[in-house]
């Protein structure tokens, strides 16, 4: 194992443990660590909303800029002051969330293959966030702004991009004029607009994007930021005076850490670090990584163009085109560059039902490495081997709790690429094939390796989404358990509880009509 892989795996294990600890109070749907992208977007909207208000009250002149912002904090503290504090703290939180998002995606290996585009388009956004944030500090034009403006231009002057040193603009009190702030506001609005455009590109190849986190998480976050704004309002330092060097500064370390770094080292070192870090992020997808799995394959004879796979694909890898054999029909087309090889499309296909009597089950869209036909054969073989009082089929997910450990004479185990690959009719097929119950397990809520596998499976089995599990299937014979790779015991306990429930609650009163494909076919 390479050093990079070791580092990544260690970080992933650590993050996974922390995320699971957060599941306890928040639940998967509102766990902030599982929804960092959506939480970041939410924070950005807070920044944009509060920023629009600050823009309307800002007096863009040398004398007015400091006074107008200070007026909001001092005189209108209950409204303008709170919005100013929200603007600052939401920006800080955005940086924190952005960095955690970056760390998490790297640790989970989500930077190559079909995620290449999202990763690459995310890297420039970090620069835009910092350019916007640092520039925002200048608008206040207090001592911190003076320090940051001077330090930033000194840093920029190291690059051979200006014919005259940019730091000359901040030499003396008469060096700047009103137009400086006009330009600054223009930049401070323009860069976030670019950022929003970049974010659109960043999520462009993902379908069903969570643009906002859960209501509970939104309320918790805004409540926390409001409380912080009241307890510790964001205030200006003394007004800028270019004739004096700022002494002790209340530095915002989320955005302005770069200045002390440049002071302690040198602009050359800072630029080298920044360029190296950016280059590393760009190069990361090209480093050796696990081989990609085969992508989904469409069978024209069995695809009727229903578009369910298009609706369910988490990565927008499917498009619909005119069917080559059936005039007036459409056919699914898989983009191999975008396909995550999750198999969720196969689970959504109405042709994936095991009740079809073909000897070889060929469906509309399938995974070569775990076809629906393989799945049916595997299930039939496992059902035939089951013995004991209460026969249970456990269908697991390769990325969730390891189901294979539960295998026993009365427990058949099948592990899938993703729970979402399972067509709901397989549950009925297992029950009518001799199983007393089916336990389906997948990643924890919000922790699906392929984003939507857990969600689609839950909705399909509860009849909220096509293809639905037929209502005649007794709900008591189906158990859903969402458990991560660290939840082995939770899964074992859930299985035991499920078995006891089946045995004690006399579920034999609601048996399904047995169905055996081969005998039924011949009959």
């Amino acid at each position, binding site marked *: 194992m390479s050093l990079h892989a070791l580092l990544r795996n260690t970080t992933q294990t650590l993050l996974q443990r922390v995320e699971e600890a957060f599941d306890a109070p928040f639940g998967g749907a509102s766990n902030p660590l599982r929804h960092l992208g959506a939480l970041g977007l939410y924070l950005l909207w807070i920044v944009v909303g509060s920023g629009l208000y600050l823009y309307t009250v800002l007096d863009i002149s040398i004398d007015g800029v400091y006074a107008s912002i200070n007026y909001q904090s001092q005189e209108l503290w209950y409204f303008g002051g709170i919005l100013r504090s929200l603007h600052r703290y939401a920006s800080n939180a955005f940086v924190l969330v952005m960095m955690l998002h970056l760390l998490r995606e790297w640790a989970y290996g989500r930077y190559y293959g079909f995620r290449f585009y999202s990763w690459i388009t995310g890297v420039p956004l970090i620069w835009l966030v910092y350019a916007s944030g640092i520039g925002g500090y200048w608008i206040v034009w207090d001592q911190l702004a003076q320090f940051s403006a001077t330090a930033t231009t000194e840093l920029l002057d190291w690059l051979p991009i200006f014919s005259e040193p940019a730091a000359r603009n901040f*030499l*003396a009190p008469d060096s700047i004029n009103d137009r400086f702030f006009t330009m600054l506001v223009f930049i401070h609005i323009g860069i976030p607009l670019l950022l929003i455009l970049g974010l659109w590109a960043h999520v462009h190849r993902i379908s069903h994007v969570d643009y906002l986190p859960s209501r509970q998480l939104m309320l918790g*976050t805004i409540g926390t930021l409001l409380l912080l704004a009241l307890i510790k309002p964001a205030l200006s330092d003394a007004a800028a005076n270019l004739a004096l*060097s*700022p*002494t002790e500064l*209340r530095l*915002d*370390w989320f955005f302005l850490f770069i200045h002390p770094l440049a*002071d302690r080292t040198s602009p050359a070192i800072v630029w080298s670090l920044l360029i190296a870090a950016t280059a590393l992020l760009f190069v990361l997808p090209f480093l050796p990584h696990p081989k990609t799995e085969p992508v989904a394959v469409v069978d024209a004879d069995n695809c009727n163009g229903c578009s369910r796979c298009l609706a369910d694909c988490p990565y927008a890898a499917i498009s619909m085109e005119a069917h080559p054999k059936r005039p007036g029909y459409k056919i699914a087309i898989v983009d191999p560059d975008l396909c995550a090889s999750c198999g969720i499309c196969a689970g959504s296909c109405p042709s994936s039902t095991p009740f079809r009597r073909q000897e070889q089950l060929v469906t509309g869209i399938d995974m070569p490495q775990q076809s629906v036909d393989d799945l049916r054969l595997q299930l039939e073989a496992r059902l035939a081997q089951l013995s004991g009082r209460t026969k249970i089929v456990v269908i697991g997910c390769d990325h969730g709790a390891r189901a294979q450990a539960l295998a026993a004479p009365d427990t058949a185990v099948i592990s899938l690429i993703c729970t979402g690959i399972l067509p709901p009719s397989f549950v009925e097929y297992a029950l009518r094939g001799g199983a007393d119950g089916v336990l389906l397990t997948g990643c924890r809520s919000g922790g699906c390796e392929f984003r939507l596998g857990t969600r689609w499976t839950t909705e399909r089995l509860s009849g909220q989404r096509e293809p639905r599990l037929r209502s005649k299937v007794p709900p008591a014979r189906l158990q859903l358990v969402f458990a991560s790779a660290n939840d082995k015991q939770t899964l074992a306990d859930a299985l035991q509880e499920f078995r006891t429930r089946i045995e004690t609650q006399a579920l034999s009163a609601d048996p399904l009509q047995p169905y055996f494909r081969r005998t039924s076919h011949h009959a």
Partner: protein
Amino acid sequence: MLKPAAAILGQVILYGAFAAFVGYFATSPKYQQIPDDVALIKLSISHLGDRECRKRTPEELQKMPPNMRAPMDCPRERSDINLEVDIDGQPAFRTVMHPTGLYKDGVSTVYKRFEVKAGTHQLAVRMNDNLIKPGFNFVKEAEITLKPAQVMVIDFNPDKGGLFFK
């Protein structure tokens, strides 16, 4: 998922930790760029180096088209600029500023920050903007008194008599 009361308590603790983290690093720890008893001298000069022009002879001018008979023949390239700064009689900075631009016809610039103890200092700046000629054609020497955190600028403006302190 914890029981509701425990879940709420857990959320309060975690949201509180989040707020404490954001609130603390938004302003702390404090940063001091220069010590309390230090002042800054900023040397910042942006100047076009001189160039050696030659007066055209009447014969040369006669041979030129009437609309192009400029009396002086000046090369496009500018001279490097030699600059020296002494503080309290000690050499503090020595540099040769090169003209910018592909044809070396742009301004020569320098920006440098010196930290000095607040108090009185002897400051001497010498500049030669035409290296064909020896010595320094611009010299400025003065005794300066700086308060703590004061910023003093060394600049150059030919319209203000060359080198000046402000």
